Every structure is written in structure tokens, then in C-alpha cells.
């Protein structure tokens, strides 16, 4: 095996393992808010690993540039998706897990207008 094949395999493995972790978190964690943690984070590193593996596999500068652009866009958009999901869930009153200990946001929302007071 050549060096670039080994690097490709390692990167792809890291990526797929983190995606698997995101899936396990999805099943295991108790409510929407905690599940967003699992997919929002493990998902980003998973995608990064797989895309970097693609870049190394092709060993082509144009492909590498595309992959790095994709990773950058993913890092810019993934947090926004997580934030919007959480916020929409909070506004529509999705129930939180019973072990939730603290809610500094309680009563801070103007529910009719959907914005913070």
C-alpha cells in the first residue's frame, strides 16, 4: 500500500466512525436538544474526514480545492442549522428530558411574536 492510500484509509475511517457516533447519539440521547449536540458535532468531523479522504485519494489540486471549499461551507452552515433547530424546538415547546437541571431561558420569550423580551 502506498502512503496516500494509507492516509486515505485513516481519514475515511475517522470520518465514518464519527458519523457512526452521531447515529448512536441520535438513538441513545434522551431529547431533541441533546440529539442536536450529537449530530451537529460528530457530523461535522465525520464529513470533514470523508471529504479530506476524497481529496487525498484523487491527489489533484482542483479536487482538493473543492473539498476544502465544501468543508468551509459545512463549518459555516452546520452550526446555523443546529441553532435554528434548537430555537424552533424551544419556541414550539418541545419537551426536554426529565434530567434537565437548569433553564435560564424560561419566561424570557414572547411566545406570540417568537422573540426574546
Amino acid at each position: 500500500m502506498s502512503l496516500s492510500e494509507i492516509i486515505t484509509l485513516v481519514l475515511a475511517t475517522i470520518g465514518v466512525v464519527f458519523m457512526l457516533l452521531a447515529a448512536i447519539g441520535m438513538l441513545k440521547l434522551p431529547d431533541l436538544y441533546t440529539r442536536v449536540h450529537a449530530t451537529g458535532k460528530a457530523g461535522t468531523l465525520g464529513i470533514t474526514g470523508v471529504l479530506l479522504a476524497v481529496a487525498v485519494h484523487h491527489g489533484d489540486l482542483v479536487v482538493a480545492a473543492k473539498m476544502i471549499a465544501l468543508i468551509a461551507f459545512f463549518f459555516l452552515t452546520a452550526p446555523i442549522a443546529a441553532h435554528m433547530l434548537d430555537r424552533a424546538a424551544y419556541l414550539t415547546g418541545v419537551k426536554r428530558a426529565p434530567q434537565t437541571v437548569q433553564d435560564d431561558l424560561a419566561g424570557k420569550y414572547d411566545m406570540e411574536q417568537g422573540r426574546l423580551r
Partner: protein
Amino acid sequence: MIALILLILVLTMTWMALQSSFTLADLIVGLLVSSAIVAMARNFLSIPFVNTDLHPQQRDRTFIRLALKWVAFVGFALWSILKANIDMARIVLFRRVDDIRPGIIAIPLDVKSDAGITVLANLITLTPGTVSLDVATDRRTIYIHCIDVHDADAIRNDIKQQFERRVMELLP
């Protein structure tokens, strides 16, 4: 208007460079796609992303020092993201679900600019066990959902000292 046309041209060039082919067909498709993107994003392009009036000590900041700080910041962000993923993996794999203590905590904000708040909120979402939920209308507080609130003050301190300090240096 000229800025928009220039933007369309730059986007078209990027499109053709990424296609790595410079035929007439690519030019036409690139122009169409770029025009569509610019038309859709038009309303947001007029909003200045960085509030320039909030930069206090512009004089003693040379361009190179600023660029180096940005590089250091991106490196720090990537390192935090890697740590966040490993932390998350540990919670998903080894913690019993009954043991985690999720919660929403309020963090006072010192960053003032739109860009600063955006970068900070994104960084919070990408790093250990925290997702930004919302920013108060008066922009003095950010609310975050935290997957494991064992010590709310420690989390607050961590975010203020680690992240907000670094964001403040670049985008106050």
C-alpha cells in the same frame, strides 16, 4: 450595481476555475448560476458585515499582525472542534443517559458587533457540549444549551475567557 456585476464576474471565474474548463458553455452556465445567486442574496449583501466604527485601536494594528491573529484564531477553532468531537464521542459511548444533566444557561456578552456575535455563536455551537440557542434582543446575553451542566459558572468562565476574549481581539 457595479459591485454586484463585479461579484457576478468573480463568481463566474470561480465557477470556471473549479470546473477547470473554460469553454463558452461554462461561461454561460457560470453567468446564469452566479446571477441567480447574487439575485437571491442581494438584500443581505447591502448589510455591512463588520461594523467598522467599533474598531478602536485601528492605528497600531498592522495588516500582518491582524492576518496572523486570524490564522491563530482559525487554528484554535479547529483544535476546539476536534476536542469537542472527542468529548461528544465520550459522552455518547460511555456515559449513562440518566447521568447527563442538560440545561440552558445565560451568558453575558461583551462582544458588540454583528460579526463578532455570529462568530462567537458559531464557535460555541461547534465546541464541547454547547449549542447556542438565541441572543437577547438587547444583545447583552447569549443563551446556550449545554449537554452537561455540572458547574454553570465554570462553563460561563470558560466561554468568556477562551472564546469571547479571542473573538473580541478580532471583531469587537
